[in-house]
């Protein structure tokens, strides 16, 4: 259960980068499958992109910079990953470096995770609640949702007080919304409609 937001969900989407990332992601996944170590490769890349790089912002700058030559980057990759990571992972990083795409490692990892889920028949699901849930509740909600949708989910839990109460589930582009906020908004709309209708038909005699 990962808690880090992917690029798309945090609000920033770059369609062009997304498209490029998808291609690299597919290549990495297929290489991983061929070597029989797909989950490990993705996990290692994810660790690098999400856990290591944020701690060393300079490294991210170096990775993204076109001023640093590919050879230089190769050297850094070998020092960082050599022996610690799977050969496939190291090779993937080298390929990205040589094509000047090391800067979009994060997007590639996002795309790879999405693609891996797709291949395994898993769907990414985001559960939004007003208050944090304990793990038993989380497990129950996920099990119930999986049963209702007859799908395997890869859940992620988000706490957002703006929903007031209830639960909002997002699977792919579809939102299943049973939050109090939406209910209230609907109630408001209905009251408004009703009043407009009543005023039009002259049902109200409020001026008296």
């Amino acid at each position, binding site marked *: 259960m990962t808690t880090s937001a992917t690029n798309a969900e945090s609000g920033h*989407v770059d369609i062009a980068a997304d498209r490029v990332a998808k291609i690299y992601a597919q290549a990495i996944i297929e290489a991983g499958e061929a070597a029989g170590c797909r989950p490990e490769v993705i996990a290692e890349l994810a660790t690098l992109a999400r856990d290591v790089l944020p701690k060393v912002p300079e490294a991210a700058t170096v990775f993204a910079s076109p001023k640093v030559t590919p050879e230089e980057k190769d050297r850094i990759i070998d020092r960082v990953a050599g022996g610690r990571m799977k050969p496939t992972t190291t090779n993937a990083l080298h390929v990205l470096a040589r094509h000047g795409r090391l800067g979009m490692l994060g997007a590639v990892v996002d795309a790879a995770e999405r693609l891996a889920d797709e291949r395994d028949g898993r769907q990414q699901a985001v559960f939004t609640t007003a208050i944090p849930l304990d793990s038993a509740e989380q497990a129950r909600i996920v099990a119930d949702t999986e049963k209702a949708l007859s799908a395997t989910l890869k859940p992620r839990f988000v706490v957002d007080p703006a929903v007031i109460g209830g639960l909002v589930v*997002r699977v792919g582009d*579809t939102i299943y*919304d049973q939050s109090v906020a939406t209910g209230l908004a609907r*109630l408001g709309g209905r009251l408004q409609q009703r*009043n407009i209708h009543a005023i039009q038909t002259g049902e109200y005699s409020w001026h008296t």
Partner: protein
Amino acid sequence: MAHLTDEIASVLREEISRFQSGIDVREVGRVLEVGDGIARVWGLSGVMAGEMVEFPGGITGLAFNLEENSVGVIILGDYLKVTEGDEVKSTGRLLSVPVGDAVIGRVLDPLGNPLDGKGPVVSELRRPVETLAPGVAERSPVREPLQTGIKAVDAMTPIGRGQRELIIGDRKTGKTAIGIDAIINQKNSGVKCFYVAVGQKDSSVAVAIDTLRKYGAMDYTTVIVAGASVAAPLQYIAPYSGTAMAEHFMVNGQHALIVYDDLSKQATAYRQLSLLMRRPPGREAYPGDVFYAHSRLLERSAKLSKELGGGSLTSLPIIETLEGEVSAYIPTNVISITDGQIYLQPDLFFAGQRPAMNAGISVSRVGGAAQTKAMKKVAGGLRLDLASFRELEAFAQLGTDLDAATQQRLDRGYRMVELLKQGQFAPMDVVDQVLSIYAGTRGHLDEVKRDEVADWEKGFLTFVRDQVPELRKRVDESKELDAESERQLEAAIAEYKRQRAAHAGGGKQLAGAR
């Protein structure tokens, strides 16, 4: 005041008791970029082409471009209120507009929202803006006439119910006037009228609406306005939504007339949208499917078969040309789609011939079958005669001596041109048209001075109305000019000429006596 509080409280209590937290299922995307009436949306992976989507604040959009990673949406409404990052909901519905009697007499925007301040359009009935045109089996040939009340049009380029007749010409040549006159003339015919103003100045539209109101035409007319100041998406869909409203009457066995004023502006709006959506530009930078945009629109005008109620939708699309250039892209497209065109020329207009219709190149491909027998009899060959007169006239201007026969043809032509002049907002009954065109084509006006033709005609029609009403009634009822009617008509003309001469002579004598 206590009464008011109680009332509100009871409404609230009732609503809250019905507050069930049903699951709200929606498919969403997020706005990546927005501007110039279009938005690019990330997500919405299940949206279908042409599907309606909803932005926050109830603004509607239309899925226009489905791409690999994003969806291009045209925004129908205030796009300045849509911002980057907004959630977009798909609705699973197609764009539709209210239809039925509730829209009659109203001024609406292309989504069916009122613009005339007369309150909301309350109609249970809605119809999708884009529908498929009736197929071959669902149609029947155009037979019934749709009288425009304009002599030149009804005699030379007759329009049948279910026909598409293009009105084409430069700016300021009276294109709109023909459309408005045709609408005004439908007063007692039961034909519902729709005037779609696309990309027009709001001031011109206000004048048109005011005119329609003044002549009592708003009782059966709906005006759909997407003025020059509204965003391109609304201008683009306005003709389709007007057609949807008009089609409702067609499918219910009634007759409707729709004037698109004008389709060149709609094409321009569509070009803007397409270029912003990065669809590849073609000739004159119009997108490749601009022909289809117009053909699928005009194809919806039809005369339905008897089994389907026999309703009809007649359309009068208007196209504005630049410097008389009819071979530009959009004019040639629409000319090839429609069943004929009324071509208006500025030089005729400024020479005082109004409507400024060029008889030589104006045609109606199907309307002939829809003319009444009487009109067909008197006006047959008129168009070609006038066209040859125009050629002869140009030749005569060289100052050569003319033989008597040629001079006679010229004289006849001058009289006919005078006779076909007609004031704006003065539609004429078809019987009156038959009577005066008869007088003209049979040479009864040849000895009348050119500047007295209008007066002669006016007097003659009054004479027939007052002194030989049975003849008028006979022609009106039979829609035919048989030998007996013709004999009576000849007699009436002779009598009118006698009275007119006597009157003129008497006037002179009186003047001389003084």
